[in-house]
């Protein structure tokens, strides 16, 4: 057999049907569902009199809309969550609703339960499905028509993507996190640098990352335009998975391990494209514009605009070229989202704020990625570290990443955010988002201007 890449191996083992002139029909091992992109899909099934083919490979949670603090609930959000509850009942799909101990952001709970495993094809009606690629799964974000297709058939017709290696070699400098790795990658290849491709993150710097860190990297593959992103599974992956509730047990664990160890890109396998990055050149990054490619290091200044897109971005962000990043003062700090809301993210942020205080006048909040992450953090006392410093400590959900619940920026407000998108209005109409790592977000909350923990 010709040498092949990891993405090609996972693809090949899921081909249900291959015919000349047609996209491959792929089998889906795990379909994750949330309240926003599914109601029309379930309605489509009802109209056609179709069932969910494999409820046992489907899991639903509420995350986008959910309130993360007590208060009046938006009736339109309630209606959407009620629709998910009814749909899951009618079609026999397991659901983690609000108030359930298992509830959380869809891309946090899959790995946490051990459902996300190497070599699977995973889909979800959400572009950050790429997160699950951290385990060596092929994880693809899909639209609502495709959600309906997967519900009805457990398969998905897919045109073959290209393959792209992103090799980050060397030791990451002190203070450079997984978030900085992916922001640095996107700053180099651009927001459309990965279009049509599955990215495989490789090299010693990637290997050195924890599973949480790899999830952060893979999560933002879509921000480079990629169809998916993945990392070959290794001992770090297996150690993370072992004993998780849905991981294989006993003899099955041994069989699974044997299979998973083969999930690597073969020597001499050819990628369609390759990018090499020297890890020692990476720094903590801060985005200045309105897409995740508009990013500079924390030591830089806001750049001179080179095109109309950059001019529009600067006007929207209310920034002047030449302003040092460290001189920019946010009103809000948000630590959360499917990019950076896992226990290790919260620990990193807590280490920075421990014994310190949030700058007066600044609003700072921590939104754990799942209720289990929240519970674990509380067991470790992180909640007290945050609340004593002046952070709000919330329930799990997508929250201020996309402002579908009451957690939003007011017009003109500026936010240091550990989320994934700095699009116009993403965190609230007129809101201005700067993407950063949890450590930079935490240090910024203390200082009142962008900075790294070393600056404190």
């Amino acid at each position, binding site marked *: 057999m010709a040498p092949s890449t990891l993405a090609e191996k996972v693809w090949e083992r899921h081909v249900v049907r291959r015919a000349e002139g047609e996209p491959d*029909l792929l089998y889906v091992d795990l379909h994750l569902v949330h309240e926003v*992109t599914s109601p*029309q899909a379930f309605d489509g099934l009802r109209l056609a009199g179709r069932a969910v083919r494999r409820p046992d490979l489907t899991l639903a949670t509420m995350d986008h809309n959910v309130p993360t603090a007590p208060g009046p609930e938006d009736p339109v959000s309630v209606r959407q969550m009620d629709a998910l509850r009814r749909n899951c009942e009618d079609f026999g799909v397991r659901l983690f609703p609000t108030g359930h101990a298992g509830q959380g952001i869809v891309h946090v709970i899959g790995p946490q339960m051990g459902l996300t495993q190497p070599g699977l094809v995973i889909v979800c009606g*959400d572009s950050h499905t790429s997160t699950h690629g951290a385990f060596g799964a092929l994880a693809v974000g899909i639209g609502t*028509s495709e959600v309906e297709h997967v519900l009805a058939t457990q398969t998905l017709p897919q045109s073959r993507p290209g393959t792209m290696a992103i090799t980050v070699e060397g030791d990451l400098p002190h203070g450079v996190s997984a978030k900085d790795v992916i922001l640095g990658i996107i700053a180099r290849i651009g927001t*459309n640098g990965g279009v049509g491709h599955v990215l495989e993150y490789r090299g010693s710097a990637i290997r050195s990352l924890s599973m949480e860190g790899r999830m952060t990297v893979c999560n933002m593959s879509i921000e480079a335009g990629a169809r998916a992103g993945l990392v070959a599974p290794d001992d770090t992956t297996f150690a993370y998975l072992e004993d998780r509730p849905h991981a294989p047990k006993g003899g099955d664990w041994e069989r699974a391990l044997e299979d998973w160890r083969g999930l690597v890109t073969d020597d001499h396998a050819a990628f369609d494209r390759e990018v090499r990055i020297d890890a020692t050149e990476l720094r903590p990054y801060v985005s200045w514009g309105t897409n995740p490619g508009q990013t500079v290091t924390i030591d830089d200044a806001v750049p001179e605009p080179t095109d109309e*897109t950059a001019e529009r971005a600067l006007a929207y962000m209310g920034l002047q070229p030449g302003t040092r990043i460290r001189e920019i003062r946010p009103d809000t700090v948000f630590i959360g989202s499917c990019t950076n809301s896992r226990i290790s993210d919260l620990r990193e942020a807590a280490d920075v704020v421990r014994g310190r205080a949030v700058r007066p006048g600044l609003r700072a909040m921590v939104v754990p990625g799942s209720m289990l992450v929240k519970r674990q953090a509380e067991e470790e006392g992180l909640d007290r570290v945050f609340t004593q410093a002046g952070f709000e400590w919330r329930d799990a959900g997508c929250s201020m990443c996309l402002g579908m619940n009451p957690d939003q920026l007011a017009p003109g407000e500026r936010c240091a955010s550990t989320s994934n*998108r700095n*699009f116009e209005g993403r965190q609230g109409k007129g809101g201005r988002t700067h993407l950063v790592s949890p450590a930079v977000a935490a240090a910024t909350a203390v200082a009142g201007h962008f900075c790294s923990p070393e600056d404190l």
Partner: protein
Amino acid sequence: MQAFRVHTGRAVVLDRADVDTDQIVQAEHLKRIERTGFGPFLFAEWRKDPDFVLNRPESRGTTILLAGPNFGGGSSREHAVWALEDHGFRVVIAPSFADIFRNNCTKVGLLPVVLPPETVRALMDSVEANPSIELTVDLEGKRVTGAGIERLFEIDDYTRQRLLEGLDDIGLTLRHEDEVRAFEATRPSWLPTTA
């Protein structure tokens, strides 16, 4: 799905790069559980500016959107396509599209047409100079004509055929039920279930 063969209509120029789906329809409007009625939310923030191109009188009744490169990036929300469709658009022409957006378009029946940047620029210039120009997009012949321009575009035959006939993907896949069942029989027993 709505079939697409040939469409003739007037175009509107949205001369911006990297228009993401958050701009096409913002998150607050994704709470609706209906499939229709998203048109009023299309570019809602930008439409607050009375000079925004969709607010100009000549834009009324346009059915073709001429857009900049990397159109439709970001969120996978199909609501973005529904909003464009509900507003009355049948075609989006751009130098490049984001993958998920383009895929969503072909499931709904909104035709995404990729043309070289210089051709899109020429079409934009012509339409801006004379908004009454009509363009014809012929999926059968894979051709865009109008404003003195005639240009072939590429689209894979499978997607083209599906759009021409308005075929439902699920119906097509269900024809292969035997193959799906045969595949399922080969899956290792240790693979996870959500039960």
